[in-house]
């Protein structure tokens, strides 16, 4: 027991003191923000400034041009309040602000036919696009305001830029609709008041059938943070286990260790020691999060942004499912570490394990959308996915207790099975030098040891 504790202590103390731990503790939350915001940002990001757009307005008196011009320069968020509605309010604002400066802007220019044929003007504009003086042009047919069948046309260099394309379409639609209403006799002021966009307020209903306070989108963030921190921590600390096992094998420390302590307490000591490191990190993150939200919300007076309520046993569930996932993946990593000779080899062999974990993370998205669906039920029963998917279900729409217990039970049995196999392979694999163990060899070790 003292030997086992010595292994646990060494793993814990050495790692918590390391620079990597400190860096990760600080970088983790940044990574989370990066994950939440960057994909959206990147997608809406359009390098190269405003889109230069020529408009050939063939309608009588070219009335539509002015309206389209103003629609194109209007604030984007006013026009599509549902944009990125699945993302929380703060993130949405951030994306949109970035989007405005990077992608939302258009520079328009009016082109008149002045008696020339549309073909001639088109050729002229095509040439300017080729010379990079223009990004595209829109042709508005003369009868567009009267004839519902009439179709405007967009010519552009990069028609693959679907975001710009749909922005143009959306705003053209708005401009044409408004102009049609004006033609039908609606005056401008009424038009503005009638076309105010509608916002949707969201209220959660809990398991007791009571509806809660207005949801600001913070619920989604909460679910995301919880799922992501489990995912990130398991991924990172699984790699730590892999590295630790490979180091002992590569430097042949294993030989000395095995001459002093049994392989099983050694392996368990290692896994448990590292798990304590991971829990320390999670505790720091969690503590900071709680303090930060309390402080920030209190200071900024944002009383309406209520932090979503968590099930009372949430901390317990979180701990259990985290440990379940951690032990499952850590023992797989230990198994791989004992089979390979170098860290690089370990990285290659660990790919399937990483993919399994990443897949579990992506399953989080359908589960967030419908936490009580059959899909959500089944994936939260698979031990490899349960740590992320079940905790998401618990946070978003707590399932019946028996489902949680069943998932934990399946997980526990799997963990014990994997640990049993790993222990057998570990004992032999750690003393095999020179070459990577093959699958038939590993199977033989399992049978014979």
């Amino acid at each position: 027991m003292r030997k086992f504790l010595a292994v646990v202590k060494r793993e814990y103390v050495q790692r918590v003191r390391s620079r990597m731990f400190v860096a990760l503790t600080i970088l983790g939350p940044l990574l989370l923000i990066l994950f939440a915001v960057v994909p959206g940002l990147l997608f809406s990001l359009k390098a190269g400034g405003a889109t230069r757009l020529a408009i050939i307005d063939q309608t009588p008196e070219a009335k539509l041009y002015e309206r389209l011009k103003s629609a194109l320069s209007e604030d984007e968020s006013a026009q599509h309040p549902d944009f990125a509605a699945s993302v929380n309010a703060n993130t949405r604002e951030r994306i949109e602000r970035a989007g405005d400066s990077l992608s939302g802007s258009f520079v328009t220019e009016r082109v008149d036919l002045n008696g020339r044929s549309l073909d001639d003007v088109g050729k002229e504009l095509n040439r300017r696009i080729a010379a990079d003086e223009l990004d595209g042009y829109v042709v508005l047919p003369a009868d567009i305001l009267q004839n519902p069948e009439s179709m405007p046309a967009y010519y552009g260099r990069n028609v693959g830029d679907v975001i710009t394309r749909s922005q143009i379409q959306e705003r053209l639609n708005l401009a044409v609709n408004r102009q049609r209403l004006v033609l039908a006799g609606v005056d401008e002021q009424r038009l503005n008041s009638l076309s105010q966009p509608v916002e949707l307020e969201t209220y959660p209903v809990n398991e007791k059938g009571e509806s809660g306070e207005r949801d600001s989108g913070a619920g989604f963030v909460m679910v995301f943070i919880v799922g992501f921190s489990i995912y990130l921590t398991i991924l990172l600390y699984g790699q730590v286990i892999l590295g630790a096992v490979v180091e002992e094998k590569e430097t042949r420390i294993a030989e000395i260790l095995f001459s002093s302590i049994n392989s099983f307490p050694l392996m368990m000591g290692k896994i448990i020691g590292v798990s304590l490191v991971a829990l320390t990190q999670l505790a720091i993150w969690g503590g900071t999060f709680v303090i930060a939200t309390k402080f920030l919300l209190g200071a900024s007076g944002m009383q309406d942004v209520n932090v979503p309520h968590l099930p009372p046993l949430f901390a317990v569930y979180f701990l259990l499912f985290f440990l379940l996932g951690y032990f499952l993946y850590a023992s797989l990593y230990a198994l791989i570490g004992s089979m390979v000779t170098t860290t690089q080899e370990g990285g290659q062999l660990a790919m399937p394990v990483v993919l399994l974990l990443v897949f579990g993370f992506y399953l989080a998205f359908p589960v967030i959308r419908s936490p009580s669906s059959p899909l959500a039920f089944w994936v939260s029963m698979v031990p490899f996915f349960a740590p992320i998917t079940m905790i998401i279900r618990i946070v978003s729409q707590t399932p019946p207790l028996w489902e949680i217990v069943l998932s934990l039970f399946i997980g526990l049995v799997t963990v014990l099975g994997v640990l049993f196999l790993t222990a057998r392979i570990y004992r032999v694999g750690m003393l095999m030098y020179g070459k990577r163990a093959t699958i038939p060899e590993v199977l033989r070790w399992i049978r014979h040891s």
Partner: protein
Amino acid sequence: MSNSLATVKLEQVTKRFGEFSAVSDLSLAVYPGRIYGLLGPNGAGKTTTIRMIVNITAPDAGRIELFGKQITAELQDRIGYLPEERGLYKKMKIGEQIKFFATLKSVNRNGLDQRIDSWLERVKLKEWKNKKATELSKGMQQKAQFITAVLHDPDLLILDEPFSGLDPINVELLKEIILELKAAGKTIIFSTHQMEVAEKICDDICLLDRSRKIFEGSLRDVKRSFGRNSLALRLVGGESVLSDRSLISSLNRHADEIEALLTPGADVQVLLRELIKAGARIEKFEMIEPSLHDIFITKVTENQ
């Protein structure tokens, strides 16, 4: 000697890896207060034998006794082991590593720090105590590792190629410590393929070749049984006589001397006469004890 209780006793031990036999039907006994040389070429089965003695792997057949008892995990604490392939945690301070390994050997916490300090001083590593392993030279790491093998004051010390990669000064330092431990009554198993080293410090030897024991006994007895059939020569010319297989069975040429092994049954006087007849200028012609190297080569060749 064989009447006293053996520290280590192997009886018909066999270890196989798949089709390959690493150790076949090996019996041996190591007695207290002796330095026992486990000798043999690479791949003879030395490391596998040692691993079974320290209870890292179990034999497929046969019996291993330590201190008169069947081996158990508890007995591991009475063994100090310096493996051939050695390593330390790269990013851990030397002092902490030694302490960690000592804890794994159930060393009492009281006075542990003082003991670590005195050992570090003994091997001249005191100022490196708080450095990480990666900052130490290979030789220094090896000495640090040596401390982990002896710090818990083991009754049985197993050293697998302890001098490889050390400079002569450090070799002398370790040798001195090993001989002190022997004087203190510890049993030492010493594995090497460097016969010159074994010759200088071993009391008993066991020759292994291709998984089998080919000889076991005290170094004195081995040498006596071989008789004085080796010659140290320094001469110019006479090459035709030296290559005569009926007189000389093997030659070992050094910088300015030749070590020759007489063919069994050949007369040394005949050899001398032939050399003079062939016109060789002889500067040295001396009968010497066979070196362990020669014995080893002869035994291994006989075994083939």
